[in-house]
């Protein structure tokens, strides 16, 4: 009986490590980018240890619209070159036969763009918010930021729909 207990104690740390590794492989990770949430594939264990978010290039495109090109990481007309000296901080090539893939560090990319990111370790959710300079753009132009909201019947209206007319944007409550 004592031997059995000893074996269980010995095996437990390895069992926990194996389960933890499986969770990293199979667990769901969520990225919220531009306000839209996307489930992404969990990276291999060596990339999953820290709070940085590594995604496949397919997931990068699905979650953010960015694509890796020779000139940098691009979305529409915007391209951000990856600093050559720090390429390994952004990209990791996983060579595992059928499961080979290129992984991209979205957290490092966020730091490059000075994009604020919040992370919840327990639920594996990363939230990338708008950059301070993006949010301050309206102060320079004084253009009211556009937004869209549904009316009581569900029909959507954007602030820009009212261009050409004066607008009183009034918040009120019904009590």
């Amino acid at each position, binding site marked *: 009986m004592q031997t059995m207990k000893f074996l269980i104690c010995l095996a437990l740390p390895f069992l926990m490590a194996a389960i933890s590794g499986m969770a990293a492989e199979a667990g769901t990770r*969520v990225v*919220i980018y531009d*306000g839209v*949430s996307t489930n992404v594939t969990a990276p291999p264990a060596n990339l999953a240890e820290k709070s940085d978010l590594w995604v496949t290039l397919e997931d990068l495109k699905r979650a953010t619209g960015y694509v890796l090109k020779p000139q940098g990481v691009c979305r529409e007309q915007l391209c951000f070159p990856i600093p050559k000296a720090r390429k390994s901080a952004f990209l990791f090539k996983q060579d595992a036969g059928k499961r080979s893939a290129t992984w991209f560090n979205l957290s490092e990319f966020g730091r490059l763009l*000075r994009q*604020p*990111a*919040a*992370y*919840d370790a*327990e*639920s594996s*959710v990363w*939230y*990338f*918010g*708008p*950059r*301070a300079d993006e*949010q*301050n753009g*309206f*102060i320079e*132009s*004084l*253009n*009211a930021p*556009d937004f869209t909201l549904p009316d009581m019947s569900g029909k959507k209206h954007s*602030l*820009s729909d*009212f*261009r*050409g*007319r*004066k*607008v*009183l*944007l*009034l*918040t*009120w*409550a019904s009590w």
Partner: protein
Amino acid sequence: MVNVPTAVWIDEKGRIVRPNEAAYVDDRYKSMHRLDAAEYFDALRDWVANGEKSVFALSETELKDRLKPQNPDWALATAEFGLGEYLYRQGLQAASIRHYKEAQRLNPDNWNYKRQAWALSDAEREYGTSFMKEVQKLNGKPYYAPRKLPGTRKN
């Protein structure tokens, strides 16, 4: 926008004419704020009639003085609050509170982060305070952008 009623004036080109400020459009709470709704309507009618020549249309300098630019801490607070909102919608209330608190720490003057978070939980238990307690601490100073119309009473 942290309280109601507040309003923003926006011109035909989509430019801000007056940023968010208290906009009492009737007198039902006049005993509390002592401001005439009629003054606000007069100012509004003046702007509708005179456009950018109205004395109530703020100059670019006045506008930029009133609009507060984001700094990196405030930008991060926006992300923390957004994450809190997402987690709350997923039913993960304890997790959401961690991020609401972080947003409040990063941008302590933002009353949206306080009011919304307190409203979504037992504020006394989770945050050790309440909306009324925090308002009382201000000793009469408004927590929202006050009305600043030229030639009228101010609050």
